């Protein structure tokens, strides 16, 4: 077994807002080996991005705070480091690629300045070395005539090209881990494929460990070795990528899989959405967090929260947080392709959502951001 690069245990990140404490990440545990690729999947507001930001201690504070847990990276607990030590890791050992390349680059600084900054800081390069390395990096990520474009500003690049620049920036100091937070969401489908290819090849070439965060199971399919599905601030299913697609065990994962459009489907076939809304993370449901939206629910789901446990008829490292699919559950033998659950339950969920006042419908849709400041 390769050396453990990252070991996250019982991570809790909370946001203290006027309406209450938002439990954005609520006891997340996972690990990553050197050079391994992991997909973190879930819908908006399930805590994926907050998990990633927590790993680099980039949670805006206040209102956010990591309240519990440990993040051991390369043998050191990131949460116990002082600010200087954390800065030594950021961009150097752990790098991040953000979702929106349009806003993640500084509009008033040249591309070369933004990439060489980290090189000068972490690798102690001088200006001309950093510049040379920046050209190499831009070549590497496939920016044509990198030498000429070095002193261009972000607005002179297209979205896909900017994301390449972001990738070059992330790779600049040969990090051991790259966190890619929805790296292709803001791009159109063709460019998306190109960027994913690029990431895949670079990860292989440099043996960099990757955490790919996305809401799109289709994106992680060909990219990662393992997948963790998140829901309501918790990991609800862990499995090998192949295993997860072949033998998913959590009704939430089933829902995600059903909502991916397929090329071989009949044209008129409708996508099956997951009815209902993501849970309110200020006051999450007491039982299973997915219970209010689950078509296969039973009374036990409402009463007690299931543990993340291994599954009887699956690979040994396949775990799910579901009473139904665990040992002795009523879903162990359910074929999710055939049985879409109890239609009366679906109608019930639909009705509940329709009855909600418009305001509460928005709750939990977006990860909590710092409250808007009174700008004068």
């Amino acid at each position, binding site marked *: 077994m390769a050396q453990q690069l990252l070991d996250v245990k019982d991570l809790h990140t909370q946001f203290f807002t006027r309406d209450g404490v938002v439990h954005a990440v609520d006891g997340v545990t996972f690990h990553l080996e050197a050079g391994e690729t992991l997909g973190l999947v879930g819908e908006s507001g399930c805590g994926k991005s907050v998990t990633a930001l927590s790993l680099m201690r980039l949670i805006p504070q206040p209102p956010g705070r990591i309240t519990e847990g440990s993040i051991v990276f390369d043998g050191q607990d990131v949460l116990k480091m002082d600010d200087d030590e954390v*800065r030594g890791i950021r961009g150097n050992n752990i790098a*991040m690629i953000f979702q929106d390349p349009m806003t*993640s680059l500084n509009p008033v600084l040249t591309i070369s300045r933004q990439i060489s900054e980290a090189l000068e800081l*972490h690798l102690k390069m001088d200006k001309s070395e950093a510049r040379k390395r920046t050209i190499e990096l831009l070549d590497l990520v496939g920016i044509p005539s990198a030498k000429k474009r070095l002193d261009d500003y972000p607005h002179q690049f297209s979205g896909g090209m900017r994301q390449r620049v972001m990738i070059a920036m992330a790779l600049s100091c040969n990090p051991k881990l790259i966190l890619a937070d929805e790296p292709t969401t803001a791009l159109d489908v063709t460019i998306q494929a190109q960027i994913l290819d690029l990431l895949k090849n670079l990860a292989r070439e440099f043996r960099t460990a990757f955490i790919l965060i996305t809401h799109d199971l289709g994106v992680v399919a060909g990219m990662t070795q393992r997948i963790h599905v998140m829901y309501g601030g918790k990991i609800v299913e862990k499995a090998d990528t192949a295993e997860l697609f072949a033998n998913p065990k959590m009704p939430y994962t089933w829902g995600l899989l059903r909502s991916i459009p397929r090329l071989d489907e009949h044209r008129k076939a409708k996508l099956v959405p997951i009815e209902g809304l993501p849970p309110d993370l200020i006051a999450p449901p007491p039982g299973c967090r997915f219970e209010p939206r689950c078509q296969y629910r039973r009374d036990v789901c409402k009463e007690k929260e299931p543990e993340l446990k291994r599954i009887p008829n699956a690979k040994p490292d396949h775990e799910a947080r579901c009473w139904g699919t665990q040992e002795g559950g009523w879903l162990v033998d359910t074929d999710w392709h055939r049985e879409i659950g109890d239609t009366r339950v679906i109608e019930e969920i639909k009705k509940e959502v329709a009855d909600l006042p418009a305001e509460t419908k928005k709750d939990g849709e977006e990860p909590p951001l*710092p409250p808007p400041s009174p700008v004068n």
Partner: protein
Amino acid sequence: MLRYVIRRLLLIIPTMFFVALITFSLAHLAPGSPFDRNENRPLPQEQLDKINRYYGIDQPIPVQFVDYIGNLLRGDLGLSFTRGRPVVDLIGQGIGTTAQLGVQALIVALAFSIPLGIVSALKQNTPLDYLSLLIATIGTTIPSFVTAIFLIYVLGASLHLLPFVGWGTWQHMVMPTFVLALAPGAFLTRITRASMLEAIRQDYVRTARAKGLREQSVIVGHALKNALIPVATIIGPATAGLITGSFIIESLFNVPGIGRLYVISINQRDYPMIMSTTLLYAFVIMIANITVDIVYGALDPRIKVS
């Protein structure tokens, strides 16, 4: 870029013409004339007519205007009606003082407003932020002549700490400079705070932090440059504010600059003085605005000046 500057400079000419036209009309339409009879000037009518003829104000106003523009183009600004000396000399005497006062005030305003705005944004909703907001609110809401009179009363007349009449030593400059700087400084503080608050919430600031930069480099290197773009655009109008503010301040503190000269010449209906000072101010404001536009293009690569 060069073409842009040339075009902007050429546009000054028609603007100046209209400024001249409007000022000339308004000045002459205002009741009274420079040589009205009063207790101090009990002149007989024929002598008045003679004076009016000498200065050319017996002509119809349009004719006078054409004459004035003609002289102006030849570089002749005319004689001051009340002082009997060439306007050029009078302006030349005062302009240094006014420029010094204006530049000092601008420097003071920038020197306190930008740091204050930045600190205020970084320490948002702390006592420090509220204090700076309080100062900024006072600075924008209380008119400068009120502040001036207050300071004259307290620091000058009561405590005798600073002289408040005239100009020359640094002590003379303290109060006028401070009072003049207050309003634009307060305004710039608020603008800096608002745009800094916006800048530090941007994604690229998070990117900069994710690179492992020190907080100081993140703020100065990444946020500040973006935050200063809107501030720079305000400096143009702020310069105009400094200029118009200096009329009052110069009069109150008896500073021998052209601001005071301007106010006096308006009261005395000294047409050539009014015209020349107005045109000079208009020119300065236009140059300030052009400069700001050019600087704006240099600060923000997304703006192409053309």
